[in-house]
């Protein structure tokens, strides 16, 4: 685990907001030289604090009007391997995220579809065909916001 100082935290906040900013532009904002800024960013990436980048696209403008979160319970634990299920579900293009969870459900999936009838197709032809799938609960996403988290 690495320790962050105030400047590191400020850099993280800037990069969470816009990761395309150059080291020199960020340096100017923070009163640091370009090489010093670059070294700090490199350290944040190398230590794994910055896991990667995410392009934020407006799904609706690209024709994906529906996002649904599914809670999936596996029906036959022990008989179906978790790896088989995970591999099969991750290969479905409409499934954006797969998380293994503990509690009421075994997995949480984020699924995009063009509209409700397209979602029904994905659900019936793809998701319900997965090995070992039992109970499925669906919640349609209405809004979401991501917050910077405790780096302030």
């Amino acid at each position, binding site marked *: *685990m690495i320790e962050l100082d105030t400047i590191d935290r400020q850099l993280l906040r800037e990069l969470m907001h816009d990761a395309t900013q150059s080291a020199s532009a960020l340096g100017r904002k923070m009163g640091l030289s370009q090489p010093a800024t670059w070294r700090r960013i490199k350290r944040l990436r190398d230590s794994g604090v910055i*896991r990667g980048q995410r392009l934020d696209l*407006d799904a609706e*403008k690209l024709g994906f009007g529906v996002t649904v979160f599914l809670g999936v319970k596996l029906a036959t634990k022990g008989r179906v391997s978790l790896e088989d299920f995970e591999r099969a579900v991750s290969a479905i293009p409409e499934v954006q995220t797969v*998380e293994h969870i503990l509690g009421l459900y075994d997995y949480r999936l984020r699924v995009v579809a063009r509209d409700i009838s397209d979602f029904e197709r994905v659900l019936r032809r793809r998701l319900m065909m997965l090995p070992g799938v039992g109970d499925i609960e669906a919640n349609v996403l209405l809004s979401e*916001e991501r917050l*910077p*988290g405790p780096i302030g």
Partner: protein
Amino acid sequence: MLDDTDRRILRHYQHDPALSPAELAERANVTTATCARRLDKLQADGVIRGNHAVIDWHALGYEVEVSLRVTLDKTQPRAFEDFTEQARQIPEVVEIQSFLGRVDLRLSIIARDMQHYQHIYRTAILTLPHIADIEALMHVARLKSDEVLPL
């Protein structure tokens, strides 16, 4: 409207948002000038909303991630607004989503360990307004998280 070139650029950009403009143009098989022009337009039209660094909270010592599924007391007309407004003030809340379905809202919460989580839960979460019911799900692993759209 988007054409095949826009889609091709977005497809490559989505899979590797850290690409430089020149690398992206090369992968999408367009000139750097075309690529820059298309990206500017996609940004102006609001198709591309941003490019964000993703933090690995584990690397910063946050070992626990919990999803809290919240049902609100809908007899309160401002239940959604009051609840989300206050939830936003909790630093450990990293995501707030609202739903149509069995659950009204979901909060993603990170904590250093279970003791820290329990502290946040008791002092910050349970004092949020208009809660009718809460269910907690512990996060074990993230198997796919690229959030790529099937363009």
